[in-house]
């Protein structure tokens, strides 16, 4: 199965950790209508790397994560203050940060150096990244355990939730930070162009089928894990980039569940 190679083992472990996480967070992202938000976050990775390059930081992962967190919080803040609709604001921020990132990274015609970021490179998963993914994994579960009800309440009716003494803004910010960190840590091997699909598709497919919250999470995590593992091995044997392959499987699942719902429940 190719697991005798170190890079495949790393990739496999990373997928075992990250796809359930994507599935779990995805449900919340989908029901909170934050798909565009996480997409913008992915794009901001470019800027994070660009800042890292400018500052001469050896490990651009750090600047990427820091920038991602700052970006997420800023987005949350502005969209809660401003009267303009959220998607406009996200779009403005997203394109602005992509532009800055592209401008810096393409200086001197060197953008091709970073083009692997766009589609992802599975060889770039290192042990260090797996450890940090695992830490995030634990943190995310703890967070979900403690705050899921708050988040859910806020996504159903924000004002009502506030009136029930739920610290809506804090919970929302924590959630945004969590997404930022996870997206940034997995972007190098998934690729900027498709990372959002990994967050959204399993949850969307699961939404087609599920009748309650428990099912929603169960199917989402199942679909995510399934397409992750299958995508990894198929991409290994067919010599295709892994991220796109995973997304293709997730999309197949989405369309299948969509048709199923149309037929039996619609």
């Amino acid at each position, binding site marked *: 199965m190719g697991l005798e190679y*170190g890079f495949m083992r790393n990739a496999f472990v990373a997928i075992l950790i990250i796809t359930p996480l994507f599935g779990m967070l995805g449900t919340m992202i989908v029901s909170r209508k934050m798909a565009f938000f996480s997409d913008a976050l992915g794009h901001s990775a470019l800027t994070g790397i660009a800042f890292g390059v400018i500052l001469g930081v050896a490990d651009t992962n750090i600047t990427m994560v820091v920038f991602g967190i700052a970006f997420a919080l800023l987005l949350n803040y502005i969209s809660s203050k401003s009267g303009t609709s959220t998607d406009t604001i996200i779009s403005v921020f997203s394109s602005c940060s992509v532009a800055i990132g592209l401008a810096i990274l393409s200086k001197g*015609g060197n953008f091709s150096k970073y083009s692997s970021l766009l589609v992802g490179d599975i060889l770039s998963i290192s042990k260090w990244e797996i450890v940090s993914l695992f830490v995030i994994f634990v943190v995310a579960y703890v967070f979900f355990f403690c705050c899921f009800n708050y988040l859910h309440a806020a996504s159903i009716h924000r004002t009502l939730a506030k009136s029930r003494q739920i610290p809506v803004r804090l919970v929302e910010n924590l959630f945004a930070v969590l997404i930022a960190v996870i997206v940034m840590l997995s972007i190098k091997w998934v690729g900027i162009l498709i990372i959002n699909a990994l967050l959204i598709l399993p949850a969307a497919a699961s939404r087609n089928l599920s009748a309650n919250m428990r099912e929603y999470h169960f199917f989402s995590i199942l679909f995510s894990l399934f397409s992750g593992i299958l995508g990894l*091995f198929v991409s290994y044997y067919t010599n295709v980039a892994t991220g796109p392959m995973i997304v293709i499987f997730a999309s197949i699942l989405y369309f*299948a569940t969509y048709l199923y719902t149309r037929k039996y429940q619609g």
Partner: protein
Amino acid sequence: MKHKYRFTALLLITVAACACLLTGIYRRWQTTEEDTEKVIVVTSFYPMYIATENVAGDCTAIEVKNLSEPQTGCLHDFQLTPEDMKLLSTADMFVINGGGMESFLDDVTKQYPKLNIVETIADEADEVDTDGQETIHGHEDTPDHAEETEHTHSHEEDADDHGSEEGSHEHGHTHDNAHEWMSVSHYRSQVEKIKDALCEAFPEYQEVFQENAKAYDDKLAALQAQQEKIEKAASGTKIITFHEAYEYVAEDYGLDICYTMDLDEERQISAGEVADVLKEINENDVKIILAEKLYGSKLAETIQKEADVNVYYLDTLVRGDYDKESYIKGMQENINILKAAFGVD
């Protein structure tokens, strides 16, 4: 309710089965019968492949394989695929150009520290190896890579990938220009080095290698003789190039480059640079531009409209068919173009 779970189970099984089936078919369709008995020599990219193939190709015990190729551009930006990593894991020798051309080399040395890597770039560019004798660069004991190797070892457990990526980029800049194969004389020495390395690693086939290399070198020498003819007419001519690889061409013909614009796939040219080129053309009275068809033609057309210059498109020989003679053919075409340019017959 039950229905739903049955559907999901069925769906997942179907998708997985289809995926496995299709992948299996694809694999069968792709793989050719492989002889595990053979010694496998992997080359990093096209010119290296052609050179090695010419030296070792007809030796039945040796199989020369090339890494999967980037479709565009130079090797600078090439990422190894898992397939390549697998290929390298079976390799007995890895022939590279060196000089930072293979920016993925760090990944390779990290995974396979024992791989016999043969660097073919000329020694004078390689400050440490001045004796000109050392040809096999078993990576671990090569002084100029000591730092890299150490890095590989110390981080083996918690490889900080990005750090090494940066490192490889820096390494990539240690040689300004590693397009050695563009010069026939340099290419001859590369072939020579490959031959020496092969002889040392597989002494049992020494004679075949020697013979092949000699035959190939004769053909290359013939090319060089033609070049020398052109050089007489062309020497000292001022030119502008649109690819750094042509610096080696210029060296072969004694041309004087007044401006190089290094164009490749994702390079955006700014208006200021176009103006610079035009200024150089006027100041130095340049009549000849050497460009690469794929990336240079747009700019070249623009320049031709603005100034009275002739643009000649030369092949950079980084990709082509896997025919043994294709380097010679390509180089011959380049020579013919330059013959026409300088009016030599």
